[in-house]
């Protein structure tokens, strides 16, 4: 059973309140689009919009991953300069 | 040396230098006029809403401020007078003198910009008092924020173009309040009552910016 099959808690239905305060954005987000969603939206809106959550989690995951790689690159650079430093160690350079 | 005298001496020195060359003031005025005219040419005959008028006016003022006010400390570095000032005065006096000078400069700039703006766009101003108050408070906030940043960029390698980059993000609260307050002074605006919050924000902004600058200035100045 997928988690989207679970019944929502019925008592928690929230009645939309304060409909008198109409800002221009109100009309934007309460309108339910009549036409069938297309393309990207069809994917994102499937399964009660669960894929939106997936997208958000993936963005965060990839962002942190990218950051991790950046730190890794700096460590690589450090390692390389350490190696170079060791090969130029005075003891060895006297021999060479 | 008395603190007030010291600050005043720095201010007087800057004014005298400025009157001799008239470089900063000429540049600022030319910049404002050229920018306003360019906007007018680009708009053509299109009628512009009061909100857009206020926005255009302040964008032009902020840009010319960012271009012109960066000079105040760079010129000291170029003339090699920094050391003299450091030896003879206290940092806070230099800051106060420079702030006063920049404030006067921005105020002149604002008045010219508004005059040009009113004439060129044929804007009616039902509440000139509110507009002038907004201009004064906006000038204070702008000068307060710019003076410290000008001292900062005088310390960087290639001084000029960095100031707008540092300045604009910090001025977003100022820009938003000043545009609303100006909008309130134009026809169809909310008037004094509607601009109350914005004016208070401007006073607070100028106060915080100047206090922070006074506290931080010594660290940039005595390096």
């Amino acid at each position: 059973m997928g988690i989207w099959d679970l019944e929502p808690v019925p008592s928690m239905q929230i009645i939309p309140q304060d409909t008198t305060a109409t800002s221009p954005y109100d009309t934007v987000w309460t309108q339910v689009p009549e036409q069938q969603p297309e393309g990207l939206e069809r994917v994102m809106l499937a399964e009660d919009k669960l894929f939106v959550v997936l997208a958000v989690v993936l963005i965060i995951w990839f962002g942190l991953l990218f950051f991790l790689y950046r730190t890794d690159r700096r460590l690589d650079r450090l390692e390389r300069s350490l190696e170079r430093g060791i090969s130029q160690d005075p003891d060895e350079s006297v021999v060479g | 040396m008395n603190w007030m005298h010291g600050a005043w001496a720095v201010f007087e020195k800057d004014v005298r230098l400025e009157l001799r060359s008239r470089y900063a003031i000429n540049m600022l005025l030319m910049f404002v006029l050229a920018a306003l005219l360019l906007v007018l040419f680009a708009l053509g005959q299109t009628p512009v809403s009061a909100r857009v008028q206020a926005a255009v006016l302040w964008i032009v003022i902020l840009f010319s401020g960012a271009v012109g006010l960066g000079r105040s400390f760079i010129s000291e570095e170029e003339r090699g007078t920094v050391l003299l000032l450091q030896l003879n005065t206290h940092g806070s006096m230099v800051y106060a003198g420079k702030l006063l000078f920049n404030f006067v400069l921005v105020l002149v700039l604002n008045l010219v910009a508004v005059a040009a703006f009113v004439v060129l766009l044929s804007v009616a101003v039902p509440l000139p008092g509110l507009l002038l108050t907004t201009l004064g408070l906006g000038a204070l906030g702008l000068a307060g924020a710019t003076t410290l940043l000008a001292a900062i960029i005088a310390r960087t390698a290639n001084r000029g173009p960095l100031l707008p980059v540092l300045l604009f993000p910090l001025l977003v609260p100022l820009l938003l309040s000043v545009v609303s307050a100006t909008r309130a002074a134009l026809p169809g605006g909310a008037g004094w009552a509607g601009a109350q919050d914005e004016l208070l924000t401007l006073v607070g902004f100028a106060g915080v910016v100047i206090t922070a600058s006074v506290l931080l200035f010594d660290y940039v100045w005595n390096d």
Partner: protein
Amino acid sequence: MNAPSTRKPAIDLRRYRFVRAAVGVWMTGVIGFAFLRDIPSLEILEHTARNLYFHVPMWFTMMAAVIVAAYHSARYLATDDPVRDVRAEQAARVGFVFGLLGILTGIVWARFTWYVGQGIWWNFDPRQTMVAVFLLIYGAYFTLRSSIDEPTRRARVAAVYNLFAAATMPFLTYVVPRQMPSLHPGAEGSPAFSETDLAPVMRPIFYAAIIGFIVLFWVIYTQRVRTALLEEELEENPL
């Protein structure tokens, strides 16, 4: 040559390793609960209400990073300790990334939830605008740092700019929301849940997510500070 540095280590490695392990377990739990616990189903929001656990902590984490960066900048000016400068810079960098992630996740959430069928990606939501300005400020901070070569002067000037910017930030949080309508809780006419009707089921996971992300920030930040300190060490005393 190769002399061990005399100053005491800037980071307690045992504590760091412990926290790193703990945050791994903790966040795994948060993510698990975030998907598996039932939540009240609201119209429009549907399952995207679960984004509360991931999107909102980005904002909290960025604020934490801003505070950490400002604190270390202030300490730098007071003590002239170069480690403080490294800490301030790294906190700002990690905070910048969290802010960016917050903006990107917010854009995706709004696009496929409130702006379905409208094709609106960027909107002038106050919090989005605010984070955008924060990112601009830190972008300016990094630009300023890269424009000065001399380390002590760079550290000092950057610390001054960071503190100056931090002083103006409260105005941003006060002014911007007054100028724009918002999708966020507390705004007029927003169908999104506000603080008062955040469902009790969601509350513990939400708080756990905030704590988890802030600790995660601390771990990444400490890792970066370690790297940066090593880099500096190598530059000062090449082997």
